[in-house]
């Protein structure tokens, strides 16, 4: 029982990171109708920026905010400069540009910061909270921060004029433009927000898996799996999906002997294909009806 609880909590901690990635994926999907394959590498790059700020002696929480701000600006710039020319051409063109971005971020990070793994500090104390045996403080922190980010996203979309404009631009760009919303900027804003959320995910996961240019590959995959499981059209569903994938993955790794820790990624693959085949809209997503 104790082992089960421990596994569940550590699954929840990983799930928090996946949930953040899933949320970032859903943000871009909501704003532009695309899956950004470069999302993981963008988050990794943001984390390296945070790492550099910390080595310059900036306090952790200032670094946290600064890295988010820089990522936001970077995300907006990438959308305006690099993604804009191919936007709305074809899925193939867009995916190719995303893959190009992925390769560039990965190798530039390797170029600047080299491929050796680096430790990344956690803002939370080392000793477990209230002396409990099940869950580390960083794990709890990850879960907490994820929920805070989700709540902030909810507030932003529900109660601010900009959030409303973004939802309108995503749902019906033509009508949104007619009522005076600058749809192009809303897309850029979506990219910026997604980059900032990705940065949070990167900074949360770096203390657990260590910082290196390839750290986000598998995490992005779990993020996709979480987003699909919860429903790619529903941010709260995506967060639930992220947590669910984290717990499932840890429990399956611990209790199903032939999977172990080695086939975890294959598990994500099977999960993704299964969700896509049996319930493409996910658990809480809306069924999108296509007109032909």
């Amino acid at each position, binding site marked *: 029982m104790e082992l089960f609880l421990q596994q569940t909590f550590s699954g929840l901690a990983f799930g928090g990171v996946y949930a953040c990635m899933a949320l970032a994926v859903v943000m871009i999907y909501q704003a532009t109708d695309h899956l950004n394959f470069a999302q993981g590498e963008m988050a990794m790059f943001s984390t390296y920026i945070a790492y550099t700020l910390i080595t310059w002696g900036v306090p952790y929480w200032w670094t946290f905010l600064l890295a988010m701000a820089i990522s936001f600006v970077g995300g907006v710039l990438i959308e305006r400069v690099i993604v804009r020319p191919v936007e709305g051409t074809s899925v193939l063109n867009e995916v190719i540009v995303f893959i190009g971005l*992925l390769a560039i971020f990965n190798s530039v990070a390797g170029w600047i910061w080299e491929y050796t793994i680096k430790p990344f500090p956690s803002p939370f104390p080392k000793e477990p909270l209230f002396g409990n045996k099940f869950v580390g403080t960083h794990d709890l922190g990850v879960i907490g921060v994820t929920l805070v980010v989700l709540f902030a996203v909810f507030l932003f979309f529900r109660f601010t004029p900009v959030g409303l404009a973004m939802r309108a631009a995503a749902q019906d760009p033509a009508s949104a433009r007619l009522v005076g919303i600058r749809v192009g900027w809303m897309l850029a804003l979506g990219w910026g927000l997604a980059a900032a959320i990705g940065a949070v995910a990167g900074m949360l996961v770096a203390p657990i898996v260590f910082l290196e240019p390839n750290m986000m590959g598998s995490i992005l995959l779990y993020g996709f799996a979480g987003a699909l499981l919860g429903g790619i059209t529903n941010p709260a569903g995506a967060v639930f999906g992220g947590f669910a994938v984290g717990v499932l993955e840890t429990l399956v790794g611990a209790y199903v002997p032939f999977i172990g820790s080695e*086939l975890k990624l294959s598990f994500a693959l099977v999960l*993704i294909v299964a969700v896509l085949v049996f319930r493409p809209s996910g658990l809480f997503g809306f069924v999108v009806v296509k007109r032909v």
Partner: protein
Amino acid sequence: MGVQSQSTNSRLRDLAALASGAKLSRLQWSGIVAAVVFGLLLPLLVSDYRTFQFTLVLVYGIAVLGLNILTGFNGQFSLGHSAFYAIGAYTAAIMMDQWEFAYYWTLPAAGVICLVAGFLFGLPALRLEGLYLALATFALSIATPQFLKYDHLEKWTGGVQGVTIIKPDAPFGLQISQDNWLYYFTFVVMLLLFFCAWNLLRGRTGRALKAIRDNPIAARAMGINTALYKSLTFGVSALYTGVAGALGAIAIQFVAPDSFTFFLSVAILVGMVIGGIGSIPGSIFGGIVIVFIPNLAEKISQAAAWAAYGTLLILFMYFMPLGIWGFIRMGYARLTRRRKAT
């Protein structure tokens, strides 16, 4: 999105119509003969190491052609071709290492296994379109290296260590080096596979594939069995990539899980985009790009290869979306047009 994507589709369609015309013109014949003669003479002109590199060019050319059949002609997307390449490579390595088969028997075996694997993966992929197919195949290629390291398969795959195999000698007492022999062997296989692809795509099957790409609903209405064609295309595409993997394993004499990461899929994709989407001869340009760009880029920095790949991908998407082969065709069309006008 619909309107603009149609314009891209029609551009692709024009190119495909040109590239896979039912009969070859005299110019195309002379081009092919010149290329084959050049290919046959090449090993005599360069060192053994260069010959080895050109063998890899042919190998990646076949892999790129495999992806091209799927993406360029059938409109299905795959980021997972590193998985099929890996299956082919491991089939060859295990057959040669464990069961001591001759290297040439491994190619049909790799082809058949990949055909089946691709067909099976193509079945669920039927329900997935565009983006979702990209996602599922992305998952496939991320999961592949981990699967190859799996404990219970270590007896055959050698785990993290991989498998080392021995380079074959030239048969019939031919007095040429191993590298040269392997180059000619690969060259013949490549010609055969390219001919088969051309033959497959120029007729009824090819038209069905393109119809599915351009308008799946209309294709179905015309009586094309879209499900069968799409999953078979996935199988054939995997077959090409698998044979390339087997040839690559024989040439490099070594397979290990970390050679078949997601970045191999990216490399094949880069080759297809730069060589020319939906063009059979462009695939060889793709092979050249895959082999020689990293060589050039590594002179700047170890990490620069991927940055160069990425930058090239994006630049080609902006300025030459039909790749090098599309550029050559366009240039040729422009030249001849001007001649007629004057």
